[in-house]
């Protein structure tokens, strides 16, 4: 028998359920609606439910904000959060490991600051999926879905933007410095839920977020005049055409006006307002300043911040590549965690360090490692995630999950649940096609505080 592909019609067990006695009730009672009673009752509880789709209203959960730190290229689990000091040299590599604040837990020797905040983190050592190509692995980790040729899925950030919208006049979903991948976009959702990209790296001296201020020579009055003219033109189009991009553009304008008119909102992007000492502590580099700005944005009300750091596709010389990049990450990440904690934000802000896959158990002929999605490590912290824990394990050569493999469905179900978004909620793809936020999966309670 052919294996059922996740995400297909066949993968939904509801399509093969034996009709229960309750299900039959709709024949006589609610047949005109085409709903069973339990569906009907569920719909009753759903403010947005229509046409029988399961669309409960999302209510903010423990996780109020998310900082997603993506390590593009595929960060080796062996050279980060899952070293194997007892494995043969060609497996363990040439980097050492150090103890952390978690008893008996060792991580890469370049993560000395992170080791000191390990009691605030959950290290997941058993993340697993089957996609060894960069774009496919990245898709998994940004959308919670396997890539499909039939449908583009929305990113976590866009779903959050769709479900919760603007807070404090700030864009709900921000990318630092820019859209890291197409899979960080809106997928089948309206372009209105796309991330706001800074377009400039906060690590640069002249960092300034594009389009936050009125152009030179345009005062508020002139701006209002322009706005009313624009609205007149837009009203014409809106009346003539029904297209996503028109309404999306309108949403963008509304948000942009909100942002432009709120000094407080604009100030969220002003990294120069952070104390110089703190900026130094994060590190005056891409890792440090991006993470610092992420914290600043979250503090101001941004719901989902996505940032990338480094290039981890280390097919050659993995020791050198890791030694060159990891210390800046380590400094920034540890400071981010402690900063959030000191400000009382860690319990409401989920920080995730993810990557598209891990790397091969054995060091290759070029002193690097190649792609390996069978098992790899991610780190989660805050927002309702357990403090000071290691979830799952890989085997003695970091080749396969040994305990508690964590798949993409379970992982994203856990994240959405903490955010207060029902993972089984059906969002509508074009053609009124209902697509679940997550296809299957269960909350991994061991990850939760």
């Amino acid at each position, binding site marked *: 028998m052919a294996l059922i592909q996740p995400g297909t019609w066949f993968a939904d067990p509801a399509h093969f359920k034996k009709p229960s006695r309750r299900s039959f009730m709709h024949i006589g009672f609610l047949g005109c609606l085409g709903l069973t009673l339990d569906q009907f009752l569920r719909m009753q509880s759903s403010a947005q439910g229509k046409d029988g789709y399961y669309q409960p209203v999302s209510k903010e959960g423990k996780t109020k904000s998310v900082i997603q730190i993506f390590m593009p290229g595929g960060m080796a689990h062996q050279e980060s959060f899952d070293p194997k000091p007892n494995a043969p*040299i*060609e497996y363990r590599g*040439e980097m050492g490991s150090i103890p952390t604040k978690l008893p*008996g837990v060792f991580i890469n020797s370049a993560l000395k600051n992170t080791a000191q905040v390990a009691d605030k983190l959950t290290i997941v050592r058993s993340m697993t999926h089957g996609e060894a190509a960069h774009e496919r692995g990245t898709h998994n980790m940004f959308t919670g879905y396997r890539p499909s040729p039939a449908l583009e899925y929305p990113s976590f950030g866009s779903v959050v933007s769709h479900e919760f919208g603007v807070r404090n006049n700030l864009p709900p979903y921000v990318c630092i410095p820019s859209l890291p991948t197409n899979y960080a976009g809106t997928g089948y959702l309206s372009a209105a839920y796309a991330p706001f990209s800074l377009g400039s790296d906060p690590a640069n001296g002249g960092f300034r977020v594009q389009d936050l201020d009125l152009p030179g020579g345009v005062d508020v009055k002139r701006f209002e005049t322009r706005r009313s003219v624009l609205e007149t033109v837009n009203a014409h189009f809106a009346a003539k055409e029904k297209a996503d991009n028109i309404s999306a553009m309108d949403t963008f304008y509304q948000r942009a006006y909100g942002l432009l008119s709120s000094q407080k909102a604009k100030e969220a992007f002003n990294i120069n307002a952070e104390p110089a000492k703190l900026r130094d502590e994060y590190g005056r580099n891409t890792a440090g300043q991006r993470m610092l700005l992420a914290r600043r944005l979250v503090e101001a009300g941004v719901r989902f911040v996505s940032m990338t750091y480094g290039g981890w596709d280390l097919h050659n010389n993995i020791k050198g590549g890791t030694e060159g990049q990891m210390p800046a990450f380590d400094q920034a990440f540890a400071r981010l965690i402690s900063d959030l904690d000191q400000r009382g934000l860690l319990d409401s802000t989920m920080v995730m360090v993810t990557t598209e896959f891990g790397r091969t158990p054995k060091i290759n002929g070029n*002193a690097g490692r190649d792609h390996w999605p069978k098992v790899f490590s991610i780190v989660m912290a805050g927002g309702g995630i357990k403090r000071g824990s290691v979830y799952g394990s890989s085997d*003695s050569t970091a080749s396969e999950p040994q*305990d508690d493999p964590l798949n993409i469905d379970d992982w994203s179900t856990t994240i959405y649940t903490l955010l207060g978004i029902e993972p089984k909620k059906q969002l509508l793809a074009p053609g009124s096609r209902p697509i679940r936020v997550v296809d299957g999966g269960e909350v991994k309670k061991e990850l939760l505080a």
Partner: protein
Amino acid sequence: MKKPGRAGHAVCPRSETGDKRIRGTLMKRLAVILALLAPAFANAASPNLGVITPRGGQRGTEVEFTFNGARLKDAQEILCYTPGCFTVGKIEVVNDNVVKAKIKIAPETRLGQHCFRVRTATGISDLKTLFVGALPEVAEKEPNNDFKSPQKIPLNVTVTGTIDNEDVDYFSVDCKKGQRLSVEIEGMRLANQTVFDPAIAILNSKRFEIATSDDSAFAAQDGVMSVIIPEDGTYIIMVRETSYGGNGECRYRLHVGTFPRPVACIPAGGKLGEEVEVTFLGDAGGPVKQKIKLPTTLDPNFGIFMQDAGGISPSPLPFRLSTLGNYVEAGPSELAKPNVFDVNTQAINGIISAPNEHDWYRFKATKGQTFDVHCYARRIRSPLDSVMHMHKADGGYLVGDDDAIKPDSYFRWAAPADGEYVLHLHDHLLKGGPTFTYRVEFTPVVPTVSTFFPKVDGNNQPNQDRQTVAVPRGNRMAVLTYASRANFGGPMQVYANGLPKGLTLDCDVMADNVDAVPVVVNAAADAPIAGSLVDLRVKHTDPKVNIDGGMKLRADLVYVQNVGSYIALDTYHAAMAVTQEVPFKVSLEQPKAPLVLNGATNLKVKVERNKDFKQPVNVYMLWNPPGIGSASGITVPGDKDVGDYPINAAPNAPVRKWKICVIAFAETGFGPAWVSSQLITLDVGAPYMSMSMDRPAVEQGRETELLCKLAITKPFEGVAKVHVVGLPHNVKAPVMDVTKDTKEIVVKLTTQKDSPPGQHQGIFAQVYIPEQGEQMLHQIGGTVLRIDAPAAPKANQPVKVAAATPPPAAAPAKTEKKLSRLEKLRVEQAEKEKAAAGGKP
């Protein structure tokens, strides 16, 4: 630590007919590739040769060539692969990146491609090419981009030019009616530092095309044209990049003249030493027969030229040299009326001369005769995409093939019985034409071998790093030497003819189950600084078995990542040189104790430095024998002279001795200088003991015992130390002593109240066994430790304090017999049941 790598060249895979789908993106890809490779240049091994300009010259003349690259300032010699044809004058060093030399090209030099390297006092560059032509050369003069004002050139010249972005070059020639005008461009074949796919055309003065050629089966991405001029007048020759790309590196050599330009010949091969009558096909003047005297020795790159009153073709037609005579297809054939040839003495030469044509050949074979049957079609630059089938003459299909040697056909076939058989051949798409030639050779299966140096950077195919051997005086350098065995197995010995004075080889026999062996090349302290192209060979160690082969080293000159090689060439010599002294040496200390299976050790690397030399030395294993793993490299810092190189053996590694060595480089001011250690013996031995571990279980805060049973397979002197490793947090085990007489040990495992509960895998023993003053590490045993949280007492049961916290180790101390896991479980279960019953019966 990063091994120095050297970026490759402009790269683009060879598509036989010039795949238009990818062509448009070649330039973009190249830019990406060069960008990706650029950082590698910074660490390139010295010296580096990028391109030789001009890209060729006329034979019989002296040309000043410029050798562009890096770290060339101590250039001493131009190594030529064609002996006797090039006389190199004084080498003038312009700067570290440029050297110049006047080279006299002998009048009898073969036309076409020739290979060169630059030898400096400190190394040998990678291999690059030059092209030799028969015609005087004319430089392109811009502006020549307007059809109406082309650059006027005489007939029978070679134009050397460059195509920039969107550049179109026009040249005009005056021709007479009935005259042959042939044009051939060398563009892709020049292996420029970029991907250059040229397109050419001949137009009349009214701008009508007389002929065009973008790609050709004969010259792949390069174009060839040959026309008979229809009327007196001026004709325009156009040159451009096929998709109007181009840059300063898109150099070309455009041959324009009255020379013959056939694109095929039949037969396309002949018997060594014989004179063969060859019919040249595809020239505008029609088929021409000429007699060619063949050489007496095999040359896989042999080619023939057509020559007549109009001149000589600028590039050769590939021609097979063989021990077989020729059978040339007599005419159309069919299954019922096949051509007949002698399979033992003749090779088939034929043409699929029209679409839908099938050729049939009948021959006799005797039972047991086994043949390698090769159809040479694209390999002789024919447009034919062959498909080949074998039938019994009286019916019955036997074997067939389409694309085994892409896209040529090949199969190995054994005659099932004495009798007659029929070979059937056609084009894959049933195409055909007057130049669709082919040659089929039936050869007996013979053992062959060749040797080569591997690519050291598997992620960078066009690199030629360390595919030469440069040995500093009084020092050593090692190179991993491979043997490609075909149709036999057995141990091989590497040897060399023509080593530069003062160089000697040191290598073990290449075992029959491996295809590589480290070869250390030693340079005497007084060896003259010189280099040569060495005939490096491998031969079977059994003198009765006459199997011997030379080098076949492939250079990918135009390569596109993920697509393949467009221009690659094979050379048959190893470039070796003695170079000037370097201020350090490395050596390996010979271990006394064996490296046991599943064991590990550190090789001691010693660095001997000159007094003032403080650079770090980066050390790598040249080769890991089967089942051996090692660190990918170590660095011995400038203030240290010893380093530990971790190495281990897999549980299933072959038990035997190998010769191994390390190579090392350090920055010496001339780029990285490489040396090697001497060869040492790596003795991979069977373990001295094995161990089985019980599966212990314990409650948090208690102690338990780990029963380890030992089986000594080789007695040893002294006391070995047993460390139990892989234990979870806050579980301790003492180091235990064992001797050759120990049968079992009991390791006390002490847990704490916060020792993590659960199943803990990956626990094993590291045993250090003394042997000749060294410690042999054995990694044996293996078990799972279960740690349980103390069972919570039932709500209605009084807590038995004494049972919950017994004095540690009190119970095991009373037990004389060591309980197995099963027995312990039974005892535990009985205790639990007793506790659950609350003492009631």
